[in-house]
């Protein structure tokens, strides 16, 4: 059509009143690419790194397919060089006072401000996202992130005393995520004194530009290093011995390598629209969530049946007015992302249709139109799969309870919004949704001060706010994470079989008969295998028999724990504290019995008494802390509060260490219960009897199923727990091999794990035994946004 090149006259537009092009010049982005001769390498240690003999990939304009530049693909040596640079820089950077790091971060914020046009045109040009979103959203937020974390660095010595930076952080950026996602993670890492190596997907120049801006500040060139390369390099980066922290495949590869793993996976979001909603505003919320280039993923939409027709009518009407086009156009809602995103969306829409869904597409987009899928049969594969951008999958619900059941019935849990003008209903849904972020009557709001993260398969890492800082810190004095990887560990057979046990001689000694059985559902039960294992005392004499638990017992214990969840979560913190204190009192009464049990395992009576006393103190301390959970954040630009909630993980499995058989058991138990979890515990293998003694009190004091204790072969029980999909988190304190297995096996549901890598902890010391780390691990954060106004 030749006519398209000819611009219509004002006279014609006067009749049609159509929108015209509003192109934003991207000359400066091209000029910057020219400075690199249209050939981008990696940015390492403050310099461009362009090694010879590497493959390169073209970086294309997503609309025209025209090649803008070529990008080198890194190889393992390049990764090593970047990690080396970051390691060297870490020595200096982590030793600086917080105030100096704050200064440096502020200088970087200024630097971004000076080159913001370059940044936003380059990002929009390459990613194809609407320039408005990059210019008005991402770039200012990147600056705010630096400013916020500068303040955090400044107050670090005071606020984060007792914690130290982890070291070199490896960050693997998925192709879906923009440079802003990188900023969310590198800012806290740099602020607390870590240095970073970022592996960006091929052909993403914006992170390289940012690294260059940071490098040109001069002083600390190696703190931010960016290399571009295929995702297959991820494990290479992550398993480098100097990298201290780092998705499912990655978790498997990394098992035992000693790196801490922070996952942020899916980008799918959820929107619950109730009959009490302002439907027109909720429709705008859907646009914000799916069709405004703000989010990287698709949207699952739950609509209450009574407003289904009305919502669909308004939504389809609204979709017809959406404008798509070139990202660099100032008047489009949706830009044009690359062919990969289009193919994904096309494939999903096609599959959904073939599985019986209605697919509605509207709006004017030369690329891939906004897409609304409805009537998808719940059991169809598409209903289970992650929804890609820019697709919205709508389904209906009848009651708020049903909405919660549907919403929580997916493995994803990143973010959700609830639309209801009834405060009670909105809060009920907001608290009940198992996601990291909930917005009430809004969608996609972000702020540097509000922690953002996910639960379930959306990953367990946090960024933003104070929670984000802890991702890059560890308690001072913790040994650096060394690899404990063993090539010889056979994942298929670890803990598979239980060695059989035979009668082991006469039971001798003055102590009363040991409690016997598995403590499940509030009472002692016989093990499914109907066999027992002997427990020897320090003299080698038989102390008693404990039940030999197996897979069926674990299943039963997890079921019992699940049944107790709702009751325990529903308890007020005060009630939880009361129960923990009551347990402490019971423990005191049992002191002499417990001490003598410990003594038989070779402890001095004096030390045994100390251990019992410390244990009661732990119960009281966690009881007291149960009452101080979460807080309210005040966020600039938002009228209204953001609640930072600390929510229980659910059913928490704990494999207790052999050291400090009573204290470790009680500390872990108390922290878990105080945060509202129910637990399945495997006590110390060598000395499980004190834990069973405590069970006798718990049988009388605690609700049934809240605490379940299974004795038996630790490797076998660990295997059962790690492979159980309905255990929400697993803490393992045992052998290095066990740790490695737990990390490998838990990839099944991506449950958060905490393993000791075979290193014993000093449970009697504040920092390790009772410290903040336990509290951090025992609950997950949720941010609940409550905008206000009438």
């Amino acid at each position: 059509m030749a006519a398209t090149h000819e611009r219509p006259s004002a006279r014609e537009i006067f009749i049609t009143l159509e929108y015209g092009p509003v192109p934003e010049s991207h000359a400066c982005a091209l000029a910057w690419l020219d400075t690199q001769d249209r050939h981008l390498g990696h940015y390492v240690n403050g310099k461009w790194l362009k090694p010879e003999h590497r493959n390169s990939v073209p970086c294309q304009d997503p609309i025209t397919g025209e090649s803008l530049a070529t990008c080198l693909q890194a190889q393992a040596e390049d990764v090593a060089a970047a990690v080396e640079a970051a390691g060297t820089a870490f020595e200096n950077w982590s030793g600086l006072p917080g105030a100096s790091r704050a200064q440096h971060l502020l200088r970087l914020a200024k630097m971004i401000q000076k080159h913001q046009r370059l940044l936003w045109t380059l990002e929009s040009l390459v990613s194809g996202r609407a320039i408005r979103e990059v210019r008005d959203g991402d770039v200012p937020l990147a600056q705010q992130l630096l400013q916020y974390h500068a303040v955090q660095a400044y107050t670090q010595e005071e606020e984060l005393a007792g914690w130290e930076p982890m070291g070199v952080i490896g960050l693997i950026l998925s192709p879906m995520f923009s440079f802003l996602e990188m900023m969310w993670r590198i800012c806290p890492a740099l602020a607390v004194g870590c240095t970073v190596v970022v592996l960006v997907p091929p052909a993403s120049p914006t992170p390289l530009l940012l690294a260059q801006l940071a490098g040109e500040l001069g002083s600390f060139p190696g703190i931010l290093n960016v290399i571009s390369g295929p995702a297959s390099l991820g494990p290479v980066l992550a398993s480098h011995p100097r990298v201290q922290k780092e998705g499912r495949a990655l978790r498997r590869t990394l098992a035992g390598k000693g790196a801490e793993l922070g996952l942020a996976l899916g980008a799918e979001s959820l929107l619950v629209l109730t009959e009490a909603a302002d439907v027109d505003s909720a429709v705008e919320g859907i646009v914000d969530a799916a069709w405004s280039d703000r989010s990287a993923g698709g949207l699952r939409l739950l609509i209450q049946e009574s407003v289904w027709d009305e919502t669909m009518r308004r939504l389809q009407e609204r979709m017809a007015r959406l404008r798509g086009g070139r990202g660099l156009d100032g008047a489009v809602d949706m830009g044009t992302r690359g062919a990969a995103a289009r193919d994904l969306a096309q494939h999903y829409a096609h599959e959904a249709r073939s599985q019986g869904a209605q697919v509605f597409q509207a709006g004017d987009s030369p690329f891939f139109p906004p897409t609304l899928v409805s009537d998808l049969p719940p059991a169809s594969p598409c209903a289970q799969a992650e929804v890609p951008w820019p697709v919205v999958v709508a389904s209906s619900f009848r009651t708020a309870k049903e909405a919660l059941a549907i919403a929580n019935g997916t493995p994803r849990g990143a973010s959700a919004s609830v639309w209801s003008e009834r405060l009670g209903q909105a809060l009920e849904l907001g608290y009940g949704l198992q996601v990291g972020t909930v917005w009430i009557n809004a969608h996609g709001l972000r702020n540097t001060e509000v922690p953002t993260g996910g639960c379930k398969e959306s990953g367990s890492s946090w960024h933003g706010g104070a929670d984000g800082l802890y991702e890059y810190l560890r308690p001072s004095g913790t040994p650096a994470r060394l690899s404990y990887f063993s090539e010889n560990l056979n994942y298929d057979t670890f803990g598979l079989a239980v060695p059989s046990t035979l009668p082991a001689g006469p039971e001798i000694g003055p102590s009363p008969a040991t409690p016997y059985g598995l403590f499940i559902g509030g009472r002692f039960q016989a093990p499914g295998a109907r066999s027992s294992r002997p427990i020897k005392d320090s003299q080698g004499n038989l102390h008693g028999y404990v039940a030999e638990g197996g897979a069926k017992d674990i299943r039963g214990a997890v079921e019992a724990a699940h049944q107790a969840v709702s009751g325990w979560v529903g308890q007020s913190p005060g009630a939880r504290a009361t129960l923990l204190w009551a347990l402490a009192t019971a423990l005191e009464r049992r002191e002499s019995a417990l001490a003598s049990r410990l003594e038989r395992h070779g402890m001095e009576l004096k030390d045994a008494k100390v251990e019992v006393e410390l244990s009661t103190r732990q119960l009281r301390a966690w009881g007291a802390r149960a009452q101080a959970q979460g807080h309210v954040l005040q966020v600039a630009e938002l009228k209204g509060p953001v609640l930072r909630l600390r929510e229980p993980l659910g059913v928490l499995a704990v494999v207790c260490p052999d050291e400090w058989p009573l204290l470790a058991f009680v500390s872990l138990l108390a922290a878990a219960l105080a945060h509202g979890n129910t637990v399945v515990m495997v006590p110390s293998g060598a000395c499980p009897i004190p834990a069973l003694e405590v069970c006798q009190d718990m049988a009388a004091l605690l609700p049934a199923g809240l605490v379940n204790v299974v004795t038996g072969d630790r490797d076998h029980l660990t295997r059962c727990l790690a492979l159980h999909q309905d255990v929400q988190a697993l803490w393992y304190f045992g052998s290095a091999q066990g740790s490695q297995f737990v990390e490998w096996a838990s990839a099944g549901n991506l449950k958060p794990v905490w393993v000791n890598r075979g290193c014993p902890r000093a449970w009697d010391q504040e920092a390790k035994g009772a410290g903040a780390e336990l509290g951090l691990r025992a609950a997950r954060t949720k941010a609940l946004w409550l905008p206000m106004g009438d």
Partner: protein
Amino acid sequence: MSARNRGTELDLSWISKIQVNQPAVLRRAEQIQARRTVKKEWQAAWLLKAVTFIDLTTLSGDDTSSSIQRLCYKAKYPIREDLLKSLNMHDKGLTTAAVCVYPARVCDAVKALKASGCTIPVASVATGFPSGQTHLKTRLEEIRLAVEDGATEIDVVINRTLVLTGQWEALYDEIRQFRKACGEAHLKTILATGELGSLTNVYKASMIAMMAGSDFIKTSTGKETVNATFPVAIVMLRAIRDFFWKTGNKVGFKPAGGIRSAKDSLAWLSLVKEELGDEWLTPELFRIGASTLLSDIERQIYHHVTGRYAAYHDLPMS
């Protein structure tokens, strides 16, 4: 003119369940301005279109027949002839949509327009403008007198007391009577949204005014402390769409008060285009109440045509 809104029986179920979420509407209002803009030829064409939506208004204590005459002349020749020529728009008979004056000046306006041989309608404010705090009897009489003097559009103000105390039936009855008093003249109902207290009230008042047979609903008098704002407009436009979906009647929308810059007027056009669609972008269904807006539009057109910014004396005063 399109078919007039005959109104409907009062149905309170249309407003009883409505809850407007103010923070969400505020966000939408910000977005519309950030996400839509027009440049170059499009901007010039949109600005000229905006001219045809203007109710060129003077509501001052010191209005006299000479100032009214000047206003009417400007309404007929809103943009300098040579500028229109270079845009090839000189033969379109471009005028503003109406002139809007106080009831006592209606005669002056009708006479002035007649003298210049044009058919631009004269709108009169009425019913105790701007506060509406006079007796119903005098308010109704005011309408009748303005219509007698030749006003073909009447901008009435509603009784805010009735909204704030939730007397929706009484409000419906009053506007019904206004409508009757107007006869053939079009009824534009000013909601004075700055004084209604909440966006939910704005929606409800809009719906009542439309059920009672208003041809237009209008944001404000220009005399309140808060006048035409985007959030309020969004709520009113959504009410208009809901009313259209329920009854098939198209009711017009008129923002007024505080709209001074050409850029603002473009945002108002895209707001209507986005929320209601192109069908509403006609003088029959969309007006902008303004006095100084026109001269800013003319300056922008001048700049578009000549590439220079106009001096004060380059353009005729209104």
